[in-house]
């Protein structure tokens, strides 16, 4: 026994090294679990605060651009508003009251963001205190941005669409084909589209939007436009690259989408899953 302790003591540096590596390896593997849920990432109060102050300084250099963008978005929305009554005749059908206000939007500022890693995240300056919870969708005026990963009282961290593990349920607007958008980790301006079967006729410039099937995003949020289409002779699915609608390199204000009926949809779908088993 004494010899054993002596052995460990002689090689203590190596054993400490092993211990620390095992701890870090375990953290890498269990990264999404409860332990790291909100404390060990940039949604914790201290890190969020540092990033918020950093952003406050950077804002001085880009306020002009942000103003212009928000004004344009306003213009587009106002134009849409004037068109609306002509298309929808509300006397003919009836919307359940619960659905009328199904989605609610909270505005937040992106205080930190990355685009060049394999797993990119963004930090927002709003958290639980403003009603943001895990799993909500995030968009801006141009299109889809990502999904909230974890929250603290005043900050939230989200997976950006440029996260190689995030799968987004999408449809090709023209053909109504359901497919999956996923980032391959290389170009921050493009995302790949998977599971588009080869009988669909694709051409460049087709719009890709969210499907609305997973209760996170409303249907019809723009993801991007097809940039290139490729298929191998023996492949079942196309290899499609999509130009992203959002410029991830300059995110400023975003909307976090709360779905009032998410719980209802999820529990209903769960009962069906249980019945199938």
């Amino acid at each position, binding site marked *: 026994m004494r010899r054993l302790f002596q052995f460990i003591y002689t090689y203590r*540096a*190596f054993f400490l*090294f092993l211990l620390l*590596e095992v701890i870090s390896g375990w*953290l890498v*593997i269990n990264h999404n679990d409860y332990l790291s849920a909100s404390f*060990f990432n940039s949604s914790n109060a201290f890190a969020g605060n*540092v990033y918020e102050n950093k952003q406050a300084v950077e804002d001085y250099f880009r306020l002009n651009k942000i103003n212009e963008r928000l004004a344009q978005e306003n213009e587009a929305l106002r134009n849409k508003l004037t068109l609306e009554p002509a298309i929808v005749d509300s006397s003919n059908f009836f919307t359940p009251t619960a659905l009328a206000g199904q989605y609610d939007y909270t505005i937040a500022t992106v205080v930190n963001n990355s685009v060049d890693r*394999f797993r990119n995240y963004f*930090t927002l300056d709003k958290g639980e205190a403003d009603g943001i919870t895990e799993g909500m969708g995030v968009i801006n005026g141009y299109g889809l941005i990502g999904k909230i990963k974890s929250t603290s009282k005043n900050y939230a961290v989200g997976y950006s669409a440029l996260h190689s593990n995030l799968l987004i349920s999408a449809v090709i607007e023209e053909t109504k084909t359901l497919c999956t958008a996923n980032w391959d980790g290389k170009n921050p301006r493009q995302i790949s589209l998977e599971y588009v079967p080869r009988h669909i006729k694709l051409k460049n410039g087709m719009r890709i939007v969210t499907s609305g099937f997973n209760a996170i995003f409303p249907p019809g949020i723009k993801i991007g436009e097809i940039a290139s289409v490729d298929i191998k002779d023996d492949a079942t699915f196309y290899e499609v690259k999509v130009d992203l609608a959002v410029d991830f390199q300059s995110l400023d204000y975003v909307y976090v989408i709360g779905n009032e009926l998410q719980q209802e949809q999820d529990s209903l779908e769960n009962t069906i899953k249980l019945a199938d088993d």
Partner: protein
Amino acid sequence: MINIENIKQAFIWLLFVAGQLLLAQNLVLFNKAFCFIYLGFILLLPLGISRINLMLVGFFTGLIIDIFYNSLGTHMAATTLLAFLRPLWINAITPRGGYENVSAPALKNLGLSWFLAYSLPLMAFHLLTIFFIEAGGFHMFIFVLMKALASTLLTAFVLVLLQYLFYSKGRYS
């Protein structure tokens, strides 16, 4: 435990980590070359530090960087590895005169060519670890390799520049 040298190192640590999080984090060239100057702190620590302390410092530094980078575990593993390899590599490349009268493995003490021979392989190892953990495997092998090499060169360049700017007293060769 608390003496002038430790306080000085704590201050330098703060500068390196703050520099990493507020400035160097945004410095990315061609979507490939990243700047990880915080490893300059581990590389430039005095020679007298014990291996245990060195690894604990590396582990803690990695943890702080990870919290801000939302990549829990990645930088911890890589920086601990760097701290483990540092004494071995320093012994392996002992210059002719040995390390007498040398307080830290810095450019001003041992010259540019020695410093590059010391820092480049260690950094390359560290960055390869980071990028392969981040990529989650060895697919995209060439892409990750290019990323790590480009980042090593950029980080080494910035680190040498910093030493010429701020550690300016001493001899150069």
